[in-house]
């Protein structure tokens, strides 16, 4: 029997982790898992909510590191790398010293996770603003810059996953070596310790404020779903008002959705208007004035202008020597729709590839926001 185990027998449960620390820990876990599972753009609103919540949590934890009391304050777990190395050596010798609060290796995991969290939130906001033109930083970066930040955001998330994995291994190893359940301690707050050990206060008032703020934030963010109906589904992200034109909408919208000019390059529109007498096997019989007016609007707002994410990506995807007349032949369109089965296309509610509005709630507007994508029931 070792000395520490001998001591254990005389120990009583002492609160080490106050409620805000535990609430922070497990809510952050939930945010990370949620954000990971909602990385597909069609769940962007949930992903972004997880991001905002994570931002709030991290800001809270940084503040709590100064005013959170024993075990929660940074000065209670500020170890230099010598101490971390010594601790790891102890683990390798299967005799790590026991720390009631965060141990040196765990502390460094916390600082690393907080740093990564901050970087992930910043790159996420920059990417959201650049690629989706949404959020507080909307339009700060252009599409290629937004895309690069998005890639960095993903890389950082993978790094964070690696640190989380290391942290979990650490928790498991230490739990085994000290024969104590560290996961349960993070749930209940209690660890066995000598009776005269400094205990953490419960801090339930702060925790209550946190819970209220999280719930209030969720209600504010997701309230649109409460008022949505099947006819008027909720659109979490509404795109900017794109340039519109009455004659274009009337003439092009007479036979099909008035496909927004931003969905094809200028060369495509010019060819299409020049061939208006054989427009997909129909003679449109438009008067020259009408053709000129519509063509001017189409060219002025074509895909090259990058009015939306879809516009920019469609234009990027089409080889410069190709003049496509169908949006559905653009490589970007094909890539985004490759998972849709023939059965879905043929469903009467979808009614073919021409009917964008069957799934894109903002098709008439032309913005094609990811979050406005909605498969009919």
């Amino acid at each position, binding site marked *: 029997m070792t000395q520490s185990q001998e001591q254990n027998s005389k120990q009583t449960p002492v609160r080490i982790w106050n409620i805000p620390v535990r609430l922070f820990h497990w809510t952050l876990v939930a945010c990370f898992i949620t954000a990971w599972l909602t990385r597909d753009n069609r769940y962007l609103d949930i992903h972004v909510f997880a991001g905002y919540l994570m931002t709030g949590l991290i800001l809270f934890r940084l503040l709590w590191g100064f005013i959170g009391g024993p075990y929660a304050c940074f000065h209670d777990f500020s170890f230099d790398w010598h101490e971390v190395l010594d601790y790891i050596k102890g683990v390798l010798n299967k005799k790590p010293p026991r720390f009631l609060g965060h141990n040196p290796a765990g502390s460094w995991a916390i600082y690393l996770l907080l740093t990564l969290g901050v970087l992930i939130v910043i790159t996420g906001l920059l990417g959201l603003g650049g690629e989706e033109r949404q959020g507080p930083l909307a339009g700060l970066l252009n599409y290629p810059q937004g895309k690069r930040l998005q890639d960095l955001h993903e890389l950082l998330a993978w790094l964070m996953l690696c640190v989380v994995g290391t942290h979990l291994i650490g928790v498991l190893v230490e739990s085994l070596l000290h024969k104590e359940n560290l996961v349960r301690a993070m749930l209940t707050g209690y660890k066995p310790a000598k009776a005269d050990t400094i205990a953490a206060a419960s801090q339930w008032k702060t925790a209550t404020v946190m819970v209220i703020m999280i719930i209030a934030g969720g209600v504010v963010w997701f309230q649109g779903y409460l008022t949505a109906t099947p006819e008027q589904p909720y659109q979490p992200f509404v795109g900017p008002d794109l340039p519109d034109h009455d004659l274009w909408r009337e003439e092009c919208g007479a036979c099909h959705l008035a496909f927004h000019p931003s969905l094809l390059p200028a060369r495509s529109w010019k060819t299409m208007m020049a061939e208006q007498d054989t427009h997909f096997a*129909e003679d449109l019989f438009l008067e020259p004035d009408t053709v000129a007016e519509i063509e001017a609007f189409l060219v002025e707002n074509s895909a090259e202008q990058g009015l939306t994410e879809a516009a920019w990506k469609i234009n990027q995807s089409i080889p410069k020597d190709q003049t496509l007349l169908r949006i559905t032949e653009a490589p970007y369109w094909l890539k985004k729709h490759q998972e849709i089965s023939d059965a879905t296309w043929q469903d009467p509610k979808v009614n073919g590839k021409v009917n964008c509005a069957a799934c894109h709630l903002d098709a008439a507007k032309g913005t094609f926001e990811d979050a406005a994508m909605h498969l009919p029931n």
Partner: protein
Amino acid sequence: MNIKVIGITALLLAIPFYTQASAISELETEYKSQGAEAFSAAAGEALWTKTFIDAKSGDKRSCPICHTADLAKEGKHASTGKVIKPMAPSVNPQRLTEVKKIKKWFVRNCKWTLGRECTAQEKGDVLAFLKTL
């Protein structure tokens, strides 16, 4: 006062019917100048419901494919699925009120359905049929 309001309202309500009548009569005059004889609603209806075969695709084509058999109801564009407002002027007073629009749609839809432009006689007959609805 009230009589004035009623009178103005009545005049406003009558505008579609007046413009419809004037658009059709303008076109009838034009078609007659192009050699058309007296117009027949029965002949117009026969042409409207007749099925043609598209030379290129071999598909069956007719007016009701898009406009449906009941012209008081909404139709559906054969290839795009876009909803087409009812054709019958009694349900949709905007119909047959603009000469330019009537001409445009006759060109488009005759070419798609019959594979050629309609003759002045055919167009006049179809108008004679549609205006009775």
